[in-house]
């Protein structure tokens, strides 16, 4: 096929847009929205970074500058950790918008992450965050529809197509030319994305991921290009094509995602929060109260320690028995809480697995998943943050319990209620508080993210191929069509 002809047709299509107020106006609005989405997301992430680093520093300073005191009071004093967003969250905030970003770490409890951007912007309505991902996945297809719905029926309505065909231009060349024109518009629309990717690169994202994401977005938009030209090829009237394409867009971009989420909840149900919380409390009750060394739950620990050190009384142990109890019971409780936490994460993961399967129904849904996984802002990334935070929590609590067990005499600990002298000796030096670790959850490696998102990309590719074939075959048949 002579490729010059489709290119000439594509160039004329661009010239047509340049002279059409509707096309120009739509491009302008779409361009503004995309740029605004990028600027506002970058600005939000930057301001959150400043706030986060300020609070993080402050939280550490307040913890470390606590005066000398009993180490278990520090266990209850607790510490805040903050999630650092993935570099590509400036393109696709993913689940970050719904999940919390701050977690209070303390002894005996696993708290939930709080302060999600969505919560913070609840006043601004359901589409409060206009992320570049949303702009590209939902709004840009709409622009492609507005630009392209009439591409082929317009020629038919003006009867210019017969002049083209009579000049030995083939219908498939016309189809290819119109598709090229739209693909060009899609590529131009990707310019702000490239800027976003460059910013992410400077924030430490890998070049491989940036290129992969760009290719993915291009492929997704091409799937829309071919859907638009396929529908345009099928319809003899532009108005029919527009109605049909808007119906497709509503179905694929607006209706399918929430339906898939509901279906996932039905297919992979999760226990209610209250029921789970009660189950945790019930399970924890049996581990005993770590503040009470005489709790029968610790009889076994007591016997074991007495035997280990060959003494008859806990007062004769070289370690502080109360500290040992605190350590032992924290480990025991954490083990139980982790079982519940793992269960919860597993059922959340099962739901997102269902959604991934439902992605076959809509390229928009598939692509939403592709984008989140590639950006490192999907559920698994949030789970990684939760696990890291839990590790840090357990670590600092046990370090404090260790100080309690090793450095604080048992006798003083027992008498601190009655003797002010003993109480004074239970206060450990503030130098001990310099032991906090930070949570620095990094996105998974490029290859892990690529292999996890590849099936979603293949779905988009499949749509691309199928719609391209439909359009091509329709136009190929038109060669034999009568007037």
């Amino acid at each position, binding site marked *: 096929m002579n490729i010059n002809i489709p290119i000439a047709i594509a160039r004329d299509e661009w010239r*047509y847009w340049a002279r059409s107020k509707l096309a120009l106006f739509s491009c302008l609005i779409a361009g503004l929205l995309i740029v605004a989405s990028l600027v506002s997301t970058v600005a939000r992430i930057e301001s959150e970074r400043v706030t986060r680093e300020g609070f993080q520093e402050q939280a550490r300073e307040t913890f470390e500058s606590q005066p000398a005191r009993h180490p278990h009071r520090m266990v209850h004093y607790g510490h805040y950790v903050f999630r650092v967003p993935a570099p590509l969250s400036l393109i696709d905030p993913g689940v970050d918008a719904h999940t919390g970003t701050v977690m209070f770490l303390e002894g005996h409890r696993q708290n939930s992450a709080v302060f999600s951007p969505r919560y913070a912007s609840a006043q601004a309505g359901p589409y409060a965050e206009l992320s570049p991902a949303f702009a590209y996945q939902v709004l840009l297809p709409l622009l492609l529809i507005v630009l392209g719905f009439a591409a082929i029926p317009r020629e038919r309505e003006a009867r210019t197509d017969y002049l083209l065909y*009579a*000049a030995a231009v083939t219908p498939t060349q016309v189809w290819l030319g119109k598709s090229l024109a739209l693909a060009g518009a899609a590529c131009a629309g990707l310019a702000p994305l490239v800027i976003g990717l460059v910013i992410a690169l400077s924030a430490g994202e890998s070049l491989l991921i940036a290129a992969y994401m760009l290719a993915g977005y291009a492929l997704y938009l091409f799937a829309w290009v071919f859907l638009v030209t396929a529908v345009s090829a099928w319809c003899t009237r532009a108005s029919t094509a527009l109605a049909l394409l808007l119906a497709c867009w509503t179905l694929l971009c607006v209706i399918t995602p929430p339906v898939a989420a509901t279906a996932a909840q039905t297919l992979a149900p999760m226990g209610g929060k209250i029921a789970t919380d009660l189950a945790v409390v019930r399970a924890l009750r049996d581990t005993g109260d770590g503040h009470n060394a005489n709790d029968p739950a610790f009889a076994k620990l007591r016997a074991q320690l007495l035997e280990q050190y060959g003494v008859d009384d806990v007062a004769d142990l070289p370690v502080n028995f109360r500290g040992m109890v605190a350590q032992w019971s924290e480990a025991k409780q954490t083990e139980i809480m982790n079982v519940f936490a793992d269960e919860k994460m597993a059922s959340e993961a099962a739901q997102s697995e269902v959604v991934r399967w439902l992605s076959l129904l809509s390229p928009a849904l598939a692509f939403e998943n592709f984008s989140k996984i590639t950006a490192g802002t999907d559920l698994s990334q949030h789970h990684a943050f939760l696990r890291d935070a839990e590790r840090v929590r357990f670590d600092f609590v046990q370090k404090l319990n260790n100080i309690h067990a090793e450095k604080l005499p048992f006798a003083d600990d027992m008498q601190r209620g009655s003797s002010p002298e003993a109480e004074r000796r239970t206060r450990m030096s503030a130098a001990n508080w310099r032991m906090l670790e930070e949570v620095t959850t990094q996105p998974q490696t490029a290859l892990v993210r690529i292999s996890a998102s590849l099936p979603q990309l293949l779905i988009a590719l499949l749509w691309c191929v199928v719609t391209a074939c439909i359009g091509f075959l329709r136009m190929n048949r038109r060669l034999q069509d*009568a007037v």
Partner: protein
Amino acid sequence: MSETVLVAEELCVDRGDRRVLENVSFSVGRGDVFALLGGNGAGKSTALLTFLGFIHPSYGEAYVNGLSVKDRIREVREQTAYLPEATSLYTHLSARENLQYFLSLTGVTRSAQEIDQGLDDVSLAADVRDRRLSTYSKGMRQKVAIALAILRRTPVLLLDEPTSGLDPVAIDEFNSILGGLSQGGTTVFMVTHDVYGACQVAQRIGLLQHGRMVGLFEAGDGGQISAEAVHKTFAEQQSR
């Protein structure tokens, strides 16, 4: 007779569930102008579109330069320039842009001077050539369409009512252009209502009535077909 370029062989065409061409046969020699006359709905445009492969005969076959339209449609279209009944050019483009665009699609390159010469030939006013066609009158658009068909310089011209919308001066100009092309060896098949114009330029005239060829007139050596004779047959057929 010289070499035949266009051949219609017992064409029968059905559109919808109606037969609109019934056993139509004719041939046009190289450099000849063939005019097809007939009332509205007689099947003239249908006959012309059959040569472009836009309409497929249920029986019979059409040939262009010895090529079967059915089997060699691409080559046939490359050798023919078509002027549609309803002008169908791009209204978002100017006259010059329309010509440049369509010519580039047919793979021929014409210089700006050649394009301007083509527009001079159909006497389109120079000051409107860069205005969009959406601001043109029907006759002005028709002139651009004629210029396009001529600028392609194909061996065959298929013209569907080329003079509709043109003023009398422009019609005369058009007829003289046609005479020149015919002298140069271009074969022309045109559908028209203009009996007198047709008699001036055509070597052969066919009269179509309800899908049947009811009259074929031929000019003698160097002479012209008599308009009175054509008119008389036309009127007789109409009244039957």
